[in-house]
């Protein structure tokens, strides 16, 4: 039998952990509300009799969606008719979790409750009378611990049983007498096409006057007037609007239910509370945040990170290169093939692979931050700052994730409820240097260090680039927020602060591995192809009137292409074909910039020194400022193709998508122009036409930044994504 289960529940109650445990999948979990933004399907493992599909849904607090990812869940539950809803209820937060349960039961789909985190019940001194709770709610309850893997077999067995029963109890009355009477009046007025088990759900929605449901439902005008007057009567009597009366009713019911089934111990400070007292302390909160950020990026980028990376580059890659070229020589491979493999592929890919350890360390830190629960505290601590720039503290989460990879960052923007803020976050999230940009930063940092006397190490360039990224986001936010499409009152900030927990080693390591695997696969596929293409383009060309391998790369195909585009970038200080070609390959993957430079630098007559590509690259940048300008342009311009396509699907609007692409590139160009021209004027005293242009751009940006906000007094919120 084919059976479909939906995993539903509040955010952060362990749905994905449960999903992974049931299906053996490795979906990503974290300790902040909104980790899952898309539904995911999997097959339950170890059940041969039936073909069971489980669908993991984004967490929801209620069936009235507030943010986009919640719409995904509601639509699935209501329109796709799963056989059973497995409702995950967090035992440690049972009161609010049951609120959704009361709504799920109403949908008419059989519900099986998984009382999750059951292992914590005893620890907390909670006592839950599951038998009675199950009886009153009218659905089976199984105690589970998704993390420890207990109760899962029983849960599936029970859910299968319920699915096979076919028939089940109709949802019971839970509201006060008056409301129930009103519901009873609505039920017969509903069309016959609505099945008996769904009637109650629709009756409640009609009574609430829910817009979405009302649009789908046909009521005779007589019935409509009766219901409208009934609603009005109740609203005047209870002095509130109907939606609130219903919400109130549910919580009143739960409170009563809980008073007889759950025994809570006296409140005492848990470990989590104690940690939180320090971490979000009035005085220590911000210093702790800054310290954490510094430690994370400093360690992963400069100290341990570079140490491991240097070793990989110096010892590992060179060793492979030597071994492979030795082997190829001994089997008598042609020198052309040897060149493709050793210089083209290994030289190029190797320059990037070397950064894998550094990235692993960064991913490790980020996933610990996510899993322990600190991520939301950052949003809590930083909200005030972000509101100043017209964004919500929630926007910080995508930015932080973006320092690992831009794709999940863009997807995480789904949890932002206001449509214009969400767009803004999508457009700017990739300004933050992602893991793949680290090699670029390191390489150009090396170039700059070589250029500017006294800079022994490029150590502080990486932290400086994070700063540039954040500043770029904030500047863009301020400028855009003052334009009409992005204007509007700052979105409200309502966020649950989950308890801290010790990150599970399995979760963290799995996450690091998944990300790293993605990086390595990319290096093995896209980068290899890019390297071969670049190697070909830079080795072949027209020389002496005929096509063939060229002596001088300046005659190669890539030089011709690069030279054609290069004048555009001359005002930014890197108007040579090598850097332009590298920037272009950056759109396939940002680390391809480094691999391309590796190939081009080698071809340019530096094959012995594959390790230190920087030395070869340095020739293309006349000054340190030019290198800096190149670096900034490549950090801020449109992200790699994978991220661009994620942007396209999240923006879901062609016009906005092209606006985002144009904005990112023009913005990057302007910033680089100002940095290079004004920087060169200050440092080397160069002055010319483009210096003037740079000052004009600067003046324009300053105007956009500091002009009074024409939409400041707007009292209304902008459109919510759910409505859009």
């Amino acid at each position, binding site marked *: 039998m084919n059976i479909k289960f939906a995993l539903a529940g509040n955010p952060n109650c362990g749905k994905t952990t449960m999903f992974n445990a049931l299906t053996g999948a490795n979906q990503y979990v974290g300790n902040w509300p909104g980790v899952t933004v898309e539904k995911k399907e999997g097959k339950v493992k170890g059940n041969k009799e039936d073909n069971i599909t489980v669908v993991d849904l984004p967490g929801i*607090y*209620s069936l*009235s969606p*507030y943010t986009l990812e919640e719409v995904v869940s509601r639509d699935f539950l209501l329109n796709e008719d799963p056989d059973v809803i497995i409702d995950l209820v967090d035992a440690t*937060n*049972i*009161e*609010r979790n049951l*609120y959704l349960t009361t709504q799920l039961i109403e949908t008419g789909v059989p519900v099986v409750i998984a009382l999750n985190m059951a292992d914590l019940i005893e620890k907390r001194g909670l006592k839950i009378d599951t038998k009675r709770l199950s009886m009153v709610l009218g659905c089976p309850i199984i105690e589970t611990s998704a993390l420890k893997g207990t109760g899962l077999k029983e849960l599936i067995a029970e859910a299968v049983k319920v699915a096979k029963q076919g028939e089940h109890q109709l949802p019971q009355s839970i509201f006060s007498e008056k409301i129930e009477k009103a519901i009873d009046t609505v039920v017969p007025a509903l069309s016959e096409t609505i099945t008996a088990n769904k009637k109650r759900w629709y009756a409640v929605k009609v009574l609430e006057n829910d817009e979405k449901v009302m649009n789908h439902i046909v009521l005779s005008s007589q019935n409509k007037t009766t219901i409208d007057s009934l609603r009005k009567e109740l609203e005047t009597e209870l002095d*509130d609007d109907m*939606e*609130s009366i219903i*919400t*109130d009713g549910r*919580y009143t019911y739960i409170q009563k239910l809980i008073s007889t089934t759950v025994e*809570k111990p006296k409140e005492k400070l848990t470990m989590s509370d104690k940690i939180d*007292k320090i971490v*979000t*302390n*009035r*005085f*220590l*909160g*911000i210093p702790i945040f800054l310290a954490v950020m510094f430690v994370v990026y400093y360690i992963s980028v400069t100290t341990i990170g570079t140490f491991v990376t240097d070793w990989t580059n110096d010892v590992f890659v060179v060793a492979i290169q030597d071994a492979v070229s030795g082997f190829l020589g001994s089997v008598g491979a042609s020198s052309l093939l040897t060149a493709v493999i050793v210089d083209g592929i290994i030289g190029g890919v190797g320059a990037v692979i070397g950064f894998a350890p550094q990235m692993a360390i960064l991913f490790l830190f980020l996933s610990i931050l996510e899993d322990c629960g600190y991520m939301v505290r950052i949003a*809590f*601590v930083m*909200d*005030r*700052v972000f*509101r100043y720039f017209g964004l919500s*503290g929630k926007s910080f989460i995508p930015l932080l994730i973006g320092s690992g990879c831009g794709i999940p960052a863009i997807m995480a923007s789904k949890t932002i409820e206001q449509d214009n803020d969400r767009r803004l976050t999508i457009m700017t999230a990739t300004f933050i240097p992602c893991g793949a940009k680290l090699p670029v930063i390191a390489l150009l940092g090396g170039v700059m260090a070589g250029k500017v006397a006294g800079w022994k190490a490029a150590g502080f360039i990486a932290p400086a680039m994070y700063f540039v990224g954040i500043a770029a986001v904030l500047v863009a936010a301020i400028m855009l927020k003052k334009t009409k499409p992005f204007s509007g009152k700052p979105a*409200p*900030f*309502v*966020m*649950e*602060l*989950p*308890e801290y927990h010790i990150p599970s080693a399995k979760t963290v390591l799995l996450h690091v591995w998944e990300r790293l695997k993605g990086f390595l696969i990319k290096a093995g596929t896209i980068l290899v192809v890019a390297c071969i293409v670049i190697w070909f383009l830079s080795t072949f060309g027209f020389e002496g009137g005929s096509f063939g391998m060229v002596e001088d790369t300046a005659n190669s195909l890539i030089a011709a292409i690069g030279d054609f585009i290069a004048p555009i970038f001359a005002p930014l200080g890197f108007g040579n074909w090598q850097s332009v070609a590298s920037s272009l390959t950056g759109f396939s993957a940002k680390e391809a910039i480094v691999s391309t430079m590796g190939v081009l630098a080698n071809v340019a007559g530096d094959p012995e020194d594959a390790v230190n590509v920087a030395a070869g690259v340095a020739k293309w940048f006349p000054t340190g400022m030019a290198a800096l300008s190149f670096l900034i342009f490549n950090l801020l311009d449109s992200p790699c193709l994978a991220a661009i396509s994620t942007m396209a699907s999240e923006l879901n609007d062609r016009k906005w998508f092209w606006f985002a692409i144009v904005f990112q590139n023009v913005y990057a160009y302007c910033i680089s122009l100002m940095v290079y021209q004004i920087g060169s004027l200050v440092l080397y005293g160069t002055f010319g036409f483009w210096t003037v242009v740079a000052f004009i751009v600067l003046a324009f940006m300053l105007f956009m930044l500091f002009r009074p906000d024409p939409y400041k007094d707007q009292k209304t*919120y902008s459109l*919510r994504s759910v409505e859009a």
Partner: protein
Amino acid sequence: MKLNEVEVGSTVTVKKIEGDGAYKRRIMDMGITKGVELYIRKVAPLGDPVEITVRGYELSVRKNDAQCVEVE
């Protein structure tokens, strides 16, 4: 009294919730309903938002948005 005027460390009871549709709906879904007890736990380092304990869990809301909750 409004929720944003309540001092940190005190416990209050919700009397009424005013305000605009979506936001009101959301905070009610999160458990802030008439008659429920709220404990104002702390304020963020920069003075906003506030963290409140409601129905046994921690919720953070901005002071400005909290204005719509009438408490006593």
